[in-house]
């Protein structure tokens, strides 16, 4: 044991005596391990942290979905029947309008049952949290604020407890402040305002999240079995008995629901994969450095063998040094990750959605850093240690050369080329992503999202008949049209670019009987839709008030559909007929031609699109699109005000801006692009370090050669050019390999993300140029230094 300790002590001393090598090695490890630890810190907080509250391991989550749109009554049945979850609460997310004097603010919050906070066993920071009585019919409307909202909006004033604020147009009394750090149970979406479900008229929706606390001695398996049995016998009031039964999925107390959890897992794996490439580059870099250091230590190794060291002891000695380096690198990485995590958490999220990522700097993260450091020690230390100890003692004791020759030189050169290739891959991919997302393909949505606020209206929640519903929708549109703050407003079956994808089968007039129907994307919209979204009509007219259920059927097609059905002809006046699985419908006349716009995702190819008037096919659940000059919170309040005026009981959900919804679809790509760019930059830094290290070694070896050449009349510039050229040939090979790999990866990227270019010469050549420029710099500095030694001093050095 003491020999181990001695080896470590000697290793530490040896590293202290090589401060340049030690600094570069630790920096390399800090970058490589730090990038991984930082991403792990976010992934860990997202995927591995338990739910908030006391004894989180006893919390169980479930998801309840019923097509019949009445989950709250179903939830009450579940609550009444369950024995494994005596404490069972429900919640759903919602954008709420909060006004406390002045402008209303759109706040992301949750509607919860009265026992929500009890189930979590959370104490109030100030005042009280909800009780069962707060969620009974007729109870006074109350609200709980998050600590962050209380601090930001109310300056942490304790007297806010008991004050009345307006939530969704209704007065609510603030009864308490949630404990600091609590942001609800919809991670990573942060809730900052909680209202009882009853008070917010939120008792009807298609889905509810459930959260329960296991009774003593029960297991998650028992809960799953019990809830599955309960689900099979649930009765859905007013629903078709032949219809699909309510769906309920049960999962242990994870922060994320299964779908976002899967997304987060895939995304985390992707990012860790990218960071893994950076670590690989760092390892390659460090192996090269160790290999070079091993060469300079051949004399020492020879002496050690001569005085009795066997190979095992020598490898142990060198691995001990690697262990020290890795430990220092791991500590530096943990420090860098802590700094990066804190910085990133404090930055505004790059999309207008209330996402709050935590960064878990805890024992798990430190263990991860330690494990990576340990793995790095073997990955980077073992091969150079084995190489360095495989030598001819006699030659080295006789004063053999320390030149980087033969297979070792090729190995080192290969390592550098591999490192450059991996860096080129990362940089080119990052460049492709960034450029792709900033290309017209992604920035030109074909519609104007600025100033458009959306709201979901579900007329089934107020039991409106078809006629009542149509009239109510029209009254609402009329009110909005009369409001001077509103520039345009319309109803649409789907919000564009929210991921919804609806198709319908049609046959054009004059088509042969055996011709298959065509299946464009379809949606129903009210008059004013194209004006609201800034989609120009190329020909014909918009829908009008006269396009009603009793008038001839009309439709507007986009350019792609028009080109496909009637190439070289105007679509106006042409007719199509519904011809899906149902019986043929009435003839539909094309009255307008709209410009192509994006429909499902921002990067998509133009889709054939057929718009039909909402009035000719009643849409119970629609989306209100309102274009105003007001800020989003005011606009959301304005919408609620008008909806309240036409029907006080009609709940308005969402309230998000169209910009935020469309941005959300691109968010994972944007984050991937930012991170790929950041990791590419780190990779570039590592390349500079690696090439600098190699060229320093090469220049040192060639000092005598340079001296002779200078003495024979070679100019310093020519000598520097020669050395730099030697380095750049190596880098060039790596860049070429990396670009080939990037082109291959681009094809995969193109397959995964519609609209991205598989081959972006500017990104690829830009990445190559950046690498070559950085490498030239890294080559030139040691080359100039070696040449500056001059002929006389170089020869004297011999």
């Amino acid at each position, binding site marked *: 044991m003491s020999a181990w300790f001695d080896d470590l002590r*000697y290793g530490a001393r040896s590293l202290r005596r090589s401060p340049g090598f030690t600094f570069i090695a630790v920096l390399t490890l800090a970058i490589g391990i730090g990038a991984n630890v930082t991403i792990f810190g976010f992934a860990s907080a997202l995927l591995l942290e338990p739910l908030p509250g006391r004894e989180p391991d006893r919390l169980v989550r479930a998801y309840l979905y019923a097509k019949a749109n009445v989950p709250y009554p179903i939830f009450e049945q579940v609550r009444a029947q369950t024995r494994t979850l005596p404490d069972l609460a429900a919640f759903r997310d919602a954008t709420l309008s909060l006004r406390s004097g002045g402008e209303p603010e759109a706040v992301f919050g949750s509607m919860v049952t009265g026992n929500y906070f009890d189930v979590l066993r959370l104490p109030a920071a100030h005042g009280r949290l909800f009780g069962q009585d707060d969620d009974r019919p007729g109870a006074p409307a109350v609200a709980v604020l998050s600590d962050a909202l209380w601090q930001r909006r109310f300056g942490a004033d304790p007297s806010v407890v008991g004050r009345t604020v307006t939530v969704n147009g209704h007065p609510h009394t603030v009864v308490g402040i949630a404990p600091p750090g609590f942001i609800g149970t919809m991670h990573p979406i942060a809730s900052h305002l909680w209202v009882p479900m009853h008070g917010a008229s939120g008792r009807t929706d298609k889905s509810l999240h459930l959260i329960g606390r296991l009774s003593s001695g029960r297991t998650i398996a028992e809960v799953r079995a019990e809830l599955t049995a309960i689900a099979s016998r649930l009765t859905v009031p007013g629903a078709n008995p032949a219809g699909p039964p309510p769906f309920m999925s049960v999962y242990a107390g994870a922060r994320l629901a299964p779908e976002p959890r899967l997304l987060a897992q895939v995304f985390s794996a992707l990012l860790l994969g990218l960071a893994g490439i950076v670590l690989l580059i760092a390892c390659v870099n460090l192996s090269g450095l160790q290999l070079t250091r091993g060469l300079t230590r051949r004399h020492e190794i020879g002496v050690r063998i001569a005085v009795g060291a066997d190979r095992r002891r020598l490898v142990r000695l060198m691995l001990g040094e690697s262990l020290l380096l890795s430990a220092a690198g791991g500590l530096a990485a943990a420090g860098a990750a802590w700094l990066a995590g804190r910085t990133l958490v404090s930055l505004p999220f790059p999309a207008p959605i209330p996402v709050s990522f935590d960064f878990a700097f805890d024992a798990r993260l430190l263990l991860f850093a330690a494990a990576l450091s340990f793995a790095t020690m073997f990955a980077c230390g073992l091969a150079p240690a084995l190489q360095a100890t495989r030598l001819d003692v006699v030659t080295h004791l*006789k004063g053999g050369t320390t030149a980087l020759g033969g297979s070792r030189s090729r190995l080192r050169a290969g390592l550098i080329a591999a490192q450059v290739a991996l860096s080129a891959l990362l940089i080119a991919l990052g460049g492709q992503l960034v450029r792709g997302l900033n290309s017209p393909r992604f920035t030109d949505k074909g519609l104007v999202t600025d100033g458009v606020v959306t709201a979901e209206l579900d007329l089934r929640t107020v039991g409106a008949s078809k006629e009542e519903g149509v009239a109510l929708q029209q009254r609402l549109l009329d009110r909005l049209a009369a409001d001077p703050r509103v520039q345009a407003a319309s109803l649409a079956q789907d919000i564009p670019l929210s991921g919804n994808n609806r198709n319908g089968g049609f046959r054009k007039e004059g088509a042969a009987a055996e011709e298959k129907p065509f299946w464009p994307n379809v949606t129903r919209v009210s008059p004013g839709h194209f004006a609201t979204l800034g989609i120009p009509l190329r020909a014909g007219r918009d829908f009008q008030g006269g396009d009603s259920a009793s008038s001839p059927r009309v439709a507007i097609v986009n350019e792609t559909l028009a080109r496909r059905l009637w190439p070289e002809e105007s679509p106006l006046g042409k007719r199509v007929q519904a011809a899906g699985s149902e019986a043929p419908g009435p003839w539909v006349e094309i009255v307008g031609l709209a410009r192509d716009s994006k429909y499902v995702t921002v990067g998509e190819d133009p889709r054939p699109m057929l718009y039909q008037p909402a009035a000719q096919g009643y849409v119970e659940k629609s989306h209100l699109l309102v274009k105003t000059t007001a800020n989003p919170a005011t606009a959301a309040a304005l919408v609620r005000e008008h909806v309240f005026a036409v029907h006080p009981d009609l709940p308005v959900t969402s309230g998000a801006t169209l910009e935020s919804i469309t941005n959300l679809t691109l968010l994972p790509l944007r984050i991937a692009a930012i991170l790929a760019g950041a990791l590419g930059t780190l990779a570039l830094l590592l390349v500079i370090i690696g090439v600098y290290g190699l060229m320093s070694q090469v220049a040192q070896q060639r000092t005598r050669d340079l001296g002779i050449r200078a003495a024979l009349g070679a100019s310093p510039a020519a000598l520097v050019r020669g050395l730099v050229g030697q380095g750049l040939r190596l880098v060039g090979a790596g860049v070429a390999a990396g670009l080939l790999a990037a082109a291959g990866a681009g094809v995969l990227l193109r397959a995964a993300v519609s609209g991205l270019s598989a081959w972006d010469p500017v990104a690829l050549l830009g990445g190559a140029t950046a690498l070559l420029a950085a490498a030239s710099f890294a080559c030139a500095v040691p080359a100039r230094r070696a040449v500056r030694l001059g002929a006389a001093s170089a020869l004297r050095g011999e």
Partner: protein
Amino acid sequence: MIQLHNVEKSYGSGAGQTWVLRRINLEIRAGEFVSIMGPSGAGKSTLLHILGMHDSAWAGEFNFLGEPIHKMSRKQVLELQKKNIGFVFQSYHLLDDLTVYENLEVPLSYRDYKKSDRQAIVSDILDRFQIVAKKDLYPNQLSGGQQQLVGVARAVVASPKLILADEPTGNLHSDQGREIMELFKKLNSEGTTIIQVTHSETNATYGHRIIKLRDGWVVE
């Protein structure tokens, strides 16, 4: 102690072979002090490294303490070397990053001596070689003579039966060289077999006999 029978060493060079040692037949008895002499390129150091078991690429028979080196595995040879042979080099070859004490301790550590035993042995050696005051100094803080003194101390610290010295005074001025040779003589009188390679006729006189090499052949 040592018997060499028809030991030869050569390198392939182009189409032919370059001979370094030719048909070496030697016997060295325990307790002898032998000097190997000859002009540069005669094969002196090569012979020393074969005797020291650093070099295994040779032909012939080599018996050491009754063990047939030519038939043993590399691992067995190294074990035998560790137990019985110490080395002294012309350029001292001390480990620059280690203090005098640590340089003396390293061979014992490689022979798996316990910490307490190492401390006792190194203290004894420091005392015997009168370098206690230097024990915390690094090699670059010592004169050439002092470094070679530590080199000799390191060679004997693990109590070898044989010390091989390659031009041990080659980098020292005459007074320091004399001190080192006296030290060898003393060690030999205490029972350690010594084989040295030297160019110095004076140093050779400290030994019992001289083996002369020329162009790889033993000539006397």
